[in-house]
Structures are given as structure tokens and as C-alpha cells.
């Protein structure tokens, strides 16, 4: 019973993680400017990592693999946002201005008012 519940929970986590990965990937492709794309990409760095690795850890049980998974998850959670920061900073320093895009055919009423 407990086993089944743990299995089901890990599957739910894995599925949610997969969905997060996909959403982040689509965002990194579809968003209009560089800085918005970093925002989308960071979703795959943090939330997806958390969900997928939690799911895998539940599957692994109490083994050395769980410890390794925990280490990988922690390091990814540390390095992912740092790398994104470094990249955004490099772009800013080299003179890429964060500007709101003007999309033709679409008026941005809220921003104007």
C-alpha cells in the first residue's frame, strides 16, 4: 500500500517535472527578447530539476543512488541560477539593453495607461 502510494507520488512528480521542462523549453524558444527568454529558461533550471529529482529519489529508495541524486539536485539548483545570472550580466555589460518589445499589430494598453 505504502509502496503503491510512493510509486504514484513519484510518477506524479516526474510527470509534473516533464511538463515543467517542456514549458520552459517552449518559453525559451517563443519569448520575444533575450531577457524574457532567460526567465523562461530558468524554470527548467529550478522547478523541473526539483520535481524530476524528487521523483527519481522516491524511486531509488534509501541507497547510495539517492545520495548522489540529492547531490546532483543541490548542485544544479546552485549552479543553474548562477549561470543564468552570469549570462544576463555578460549581456548587460556588453550593451544589450533590456527593452520591452513592440510587437506590431498588438497594442499594449496596460503599459501605456
Amino acid at each position, binding site marked *: 500500500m505504502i509502496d503503491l502510494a510512493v510509486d504514484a507520488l513519484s510518477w506524479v512528480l516526474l510527470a509534473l517535472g516533464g511538463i515543467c521542462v517542456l514549458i520552459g*523549453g517552449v518559453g525559451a524558444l517563443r519569448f520575444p527578447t533575450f531577457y524574457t527568454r532567460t526567465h523562461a529558461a530558468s524554470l527548467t533550471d529550478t522547478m523541473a530539476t526539483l520535481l524530476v529529482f524528487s521523483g527519481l529519489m522516491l524511486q531509488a529508495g534509501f541507497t547510495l*543512488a539517492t545520495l548522489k541524486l540529492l547531490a546532483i539536485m543541490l548542485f544544479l539548483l546552485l*549552479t543553474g541560477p548562477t*549561470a543564468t545570472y*552570469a*549570462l544576463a550580466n*555578460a549581456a548587460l555589460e556588453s550593451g544589450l539593453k533590456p527593452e520591452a518589445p513592440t510587437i506590431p499589430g498588438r497594442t499594449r494598453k496596460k503599459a501605456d495607461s
Partner: protein
Amino acid sequence: MYIAVSLAILVTMVLAIVRALRGPSVYDRVLAVNVFGTKTVLLLSVIAFLYGRPDFLDLALAYALINMVGILAVLEFFQNRTRNREEASRD
């Protein structure tokens, strides 16, 4: 379930590659490299479980640790380039 997750990761890898190929700026390409790096770590971990050999997680651990070095090198590269340009314009 592992297969579904790895398929999702593979699709995201393709999206990242499309971003890397389309650009438009060099930073977008570096961003794609970064996304691709994290996705590789995820994929390797899931494949290790799919194979049933979770003791091969060392590879994913290696990538999780040293993926950032390349991006930091990019930051330093741009920083030095900007500084050199400033110095050149001041001279």
C-alpha cells in the same frame, strides 16, 4: 514513466538547439547551451534509471558540477572584451 520524462527532455533539447541555431544574438546561443547542459544532466539521470544502473550517476554529477565553468568563462570573456574596448576608446 521514465520514457515519457525523457521524451519531454529530448523535445526540450530540440527546442534549445533551435534557439541555438536561430540566435539572434550570441547571448541567446549561450543561453541555449546552458539550457542544453542542464537538460543533459536530467536526461542522463533518467537514462541511468531506465537502464536500471543508478550507479552510473557519476556522469550526471560531473556535469552538474562543472557545467557552470564554461558559462563563467563566457562572462569573463565578454567582460575583458568590454574593458579592452573602453581602454582603446580612451587612448
